[in-house]
């Protein structure tokens, strides 16, 4: 029998808060992190809004608990802050003796520094320390070094489903007995590289994104980092710690349709959700809430909406995209939204799909518009879909529920 997997710790930094507590406060106040670009130096500053983490790199060093030094990308700092919080939140400092892994996700790694110093790399030795911080592994290794993790570390990059796949891999390794405990999630800082790249694809909204709205006009990018601690049942029960959720289902499917577009029938999304649902053993009607991928592009929201209708039929759960709150944090979106979904379980709430006004004519359901707090939430599904058709869906159950 595979071992059961429980969530014992959460760590989150986003455009609406530097830690879990601040994020919860902002969620309850229905605040959004989206606004004018302040920290990223780009000529798109006045054209494209984003959800930035509201701290300079100097301030992030303080939040990460380290002295400012050369050789740290913003990506690594965000990751260290959120992974460190998850680790402490799980009460792990006093809990050695488990085979522990770190599985982290990122899409452009330390590109934030690389794009600043690339000309130096080409012509002189002044910024050599940042040469090694460019790749995707750098932030993962900085987190592992800070937390003392050696047994297993790796980095996943499947575009915007990266962190969901990190959680999936961690759960698989725990279930099969390769690891007892995994810190899994993702980190992404905004860069000119991917802001420009998405802009070239003409899929960035010039206003705050409005997923599932008939007049939606694209993505609003965000930055942040989110990690969860997951543990095998016998380890999770040690030390009388709080259990935040059980991970009972996951599904990964590839749409195999187009490199940057999803299919009209949402087949990849459908298959990922169906696999997760089958694994969980739940009936469609037992899912109380879907935290949708809901990017705000014409293509994603239509295809995801149709996939949800195909899978859930008459029993469509409450659905919202929280990207109007946090922005689309790309590789970190999967774990950011997994945490928001878990908070819905622990706080018995359902988060609103901000900025929604106009019903999509193609869909028979509308997203949740207001924060719901007088409700019991037992099972949540969190969707993350990426370029290349890399689609992943996770299902969490209220612990002890």
């Amino acid at each position: 029998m595979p071992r059961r997997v429980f969530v014992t710790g959460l760590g989150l930094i986003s455009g609406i808060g530097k830690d879990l507590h601040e994020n919860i406060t902002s969620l309850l106040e229905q605040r959004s992190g989206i606004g004018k670009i302040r920290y990223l130096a780009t000529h798109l500053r006045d054209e494209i809004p984003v959800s930035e983490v509201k701290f300079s790199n100097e301030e992030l060093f303080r939040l990460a608990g380290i002295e400012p030094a050369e050789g740290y990308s913003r990506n690594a700092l965000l990751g260290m802050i959120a992974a460190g919080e998850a680790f402490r939140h799980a009460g792990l400092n006093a809990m050695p003796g488990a085979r522990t892994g770190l599985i982290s996700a990122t899409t452009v790694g330390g590109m934030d520094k690389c794009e600043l110093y690339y000309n130096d790399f080409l012509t002189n030795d002044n910024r050599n320390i940042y040469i090694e911080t460019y790749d995707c592994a750098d932030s993962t290794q900085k987190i592992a070094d800070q937390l003392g993790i050696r047994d297993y570390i790796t980095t996943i990059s499947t575009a915007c489903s990266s962190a969901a796949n990190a959680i999936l891999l961690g759960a698989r390794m725990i279930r099969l007995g390769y690891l007892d405990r995994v810190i899994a999630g993702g980190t992404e800082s905004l860069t000119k590289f991917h802001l420009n790249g998405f802009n070239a694809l003409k899929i960035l909204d010039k206003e705050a994104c409005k997923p599932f709205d008939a007049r939606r006009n694209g993505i609003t990018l965000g930055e942040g980092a989110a990690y969860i601690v997951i543990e095998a049942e016998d380890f999770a029960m040690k030390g009388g710690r709080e259990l935040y959720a059980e991970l009972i289902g996951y599904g990964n499917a590839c749409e195999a349709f187009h490199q940057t577009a999803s299919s009209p029938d949402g087949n990849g999304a459908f298959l990922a959700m169906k696999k997760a649902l089958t694994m969980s053993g739940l009936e469609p009607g037992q899912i109380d809430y879907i935290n949708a991928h809901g990017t705000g592009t014409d293509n994603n929201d239509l295809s995801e909406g149709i996939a949800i209708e195909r899978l859930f039929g008459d029993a469509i759960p409450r659905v919202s995209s929280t990207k109007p709150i946090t922005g689309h944090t790309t590789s970190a979106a999967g774990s950011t939204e997994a945490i928001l979904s878990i908070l819905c379980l622990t706080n018995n709430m359902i988060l609103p799909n901000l900025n929604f006004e106009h019903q999509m004519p193609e869909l028979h359901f509308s997203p949740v518009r207001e924060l719901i707090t007088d409700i019991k939430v037992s099972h949540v599904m969190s969707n993350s879909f990426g370029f290349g058709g890399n689609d992943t869906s996770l299902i969490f159950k209220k612990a002890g529920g």
Partner: protein
Amino acid sequence: MERPAAWINGIGIICAQDTSGPGFLSEIKENTTDFLSVINPDYKQFINPIAGRRMSRLIKMGITSARMALLDAQCEMPDAIITGTGLGSVEDTEKLLAEITADQNILNPTPFIQSTYNTISSQVAINLKCNNYNSTYVHRAFSFESALQDGLMQIEDGSAENILAGGIDEMTLIHLNIIRRLKHWKTEPVSNLALLEYNTPGALAGEGAAFFVAGSERNQNTYCAIRRVRTLYKPESIVACTDWINNTLQDAGILPGDIDLVILGYNGDREFDDIYNTVYSELFPGKPAAWFKHLSGEYYTAMGVALWLGANILKRQVIPAGVRFNDIAVSSIRNIVIYNQYRNEGHSLILLSSE
């Protein structure tokens, strides 16, 4: 711990050596340029030329080696497609960085899309119309090992019968010169055949692509059983590292004495090659040993070449003279351990058996 075996049933490889014919490294190609670049196959045989025109070289290498592996295994539809790449498309990334550092708007989105690390896995899936599990690992010298281990775990838990997993990285002159600033690469051209004689810092850079089909069942093309793929990050000491190797073998029910051949990742960097000497003399003294980075150069997913080498040695029961590290004779080759480390950070081990 008892874990079900998986079998290597198909291989596709693109590297600096000629791997196209029926021969097996009868001659090792000498290289005296800055890095070992691959012998490009005729990509048109594998990729629609119209689609291929827009593809960067890395994507072509990836799709082609993946198709070669599927053909070799006669596997039409793998249950998982998993790629490891330490750097992704360096060429596309460089194009974009040149535009961005000049603070230009990117006008052509193609390099951005291709620079996204998961492009190879998803392009392979699109070509096959394969809706199954799909993922990409991007962790330096763990990239390929993570991909392979992920695939083997899916066979183990019954999610998959056949998986396609591979490792791929490319080298460009720009990237080579950037990394030379860190002295990770040798600063002067060297001969790959004399790589271990220079006694200088830095490795010989290389590139390559290798995909593997592993399955829960043997078939007539089976190369070997793949029994363990493990990684260890920054061991506290060399003893912690040899203990880890020992424990991994023990976990598979193998003693160091049962090993018939040790394949080691010597890359000519005098700062780190001594780790291989220690591992060999502590754990496998008197055993036949081989090496492979003179074939391919060093790159994050070079273990793909080692796995190709080990799997072929088991299937053919021949150790090519050009890869032998010592002259110790061996009659029958049943168990091979492959051990690699990248700058003493990422350590990895693959255990292969003939049965």
